[in-house]
């Protein structure tokens, strides 16, 4: 089906077309959300919310951006909202536990398996890296996650984030530098212990 007819069909609420959209993009959206939230159940929920939002706001879809770019954008926004809510909850728990036990290491590694696509021999390193990614400024985290986890090119990331290619390159450069420093400090502390 031609793209404009496809979009018109979605805007009319045609169930078969919507199903086709979901089947086509569900893996990409799920994988993207998983890359951000690092929890399979949360990622499933978020991915569903992405398609619900797409269904409800298809009328506002602008054809200049492709459907996949638009869906990625919704997925990124939903994932970031989820992470912000989680951080706010953590801050509150931290305040409650302020007079509790001693310092935790800066990069504590979670126990649960969070991404099934990582080879066994890389799991510990990948968990550590993903934990370090959480400490990056938001835009750097988005660019790095879309590139490393979802495999988008810098050009595709620029379309999703609505910025220039050079801006994405700059974000990636700073993200890598930030992560290397975090990891260096972690391994250095680890060696001393």
């Amino acid at each position, binding site marked *: 089906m031609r793209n404009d007819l496809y979009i018109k069909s979605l805007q009319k609420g045609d169930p078969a077309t919507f199903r086709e959209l979901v089947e086509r993009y569900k893996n990409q959206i799920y994988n993207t959300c998983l890359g951000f939230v690092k929890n399979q159940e949360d990622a499933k929920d978020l*991915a569903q919310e992405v398609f619900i939002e797409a269904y409800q706001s298809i009328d506002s879809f602008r054809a200049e951006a492709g459907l996949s770019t638009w869906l990625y954008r919704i997925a990124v926004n939903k994932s970031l909202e989820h992470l912000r809510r989680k951080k706010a909850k953590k801050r509150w728990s931290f305040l409650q536990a302020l007079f509790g036990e001693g310092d935790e290491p800066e990069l504590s590694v979670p126990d649960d398996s969070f991404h099934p696509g990582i080879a066994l021999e890389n799991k510990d390193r990948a968990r*550590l890296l993903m934990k370090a990614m959480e400490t990056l400024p938001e835009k750097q985290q988005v660019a790095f996650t879309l590139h490393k986890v979802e495999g988008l090119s810098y050009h595709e990331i620029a379309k999703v984030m609505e910025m220039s290619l050079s801006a994405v390159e700059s974000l990636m450069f700073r993200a890598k530098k930030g992560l290397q420093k975090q990891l260096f400090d972690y391994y250095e502390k680890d060696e001393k212990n």
Partner: protein
Amino acid sequence: MKKKDHIQQEVDKTMRSLDKIKKAEADPFFYTRLEARLETRLDKKRERSSVQGRWQLSLGWAVVVLVLINVFSMLSYAYYHREKGLESRNYYLEEIYQDYELATNTVYEAAVNDD
């Protein structure tokens, strides 16, 4: 120096740990669950619109009734005061007639006037 090189090697290995990551796939029942969730969401929206619609209709009727009551009250007030006004006017006219003996009140007085 050796220690720093070793740490840097670990950092580099960790930085590469996501390089060959395989993309995760959504489960086979993804669409079925999505459909159910969407249906629930749309049902809730329809219910909210219907309740909201009923409230709006009731509010609308309440406003109409209030306006009618007010109009009726204003008209009654105006009519009452108009009547009261006429009564007062007639009373004052009577007073003036009596003061200046302008009205012929009795047959005797009418006969006197004729003379």
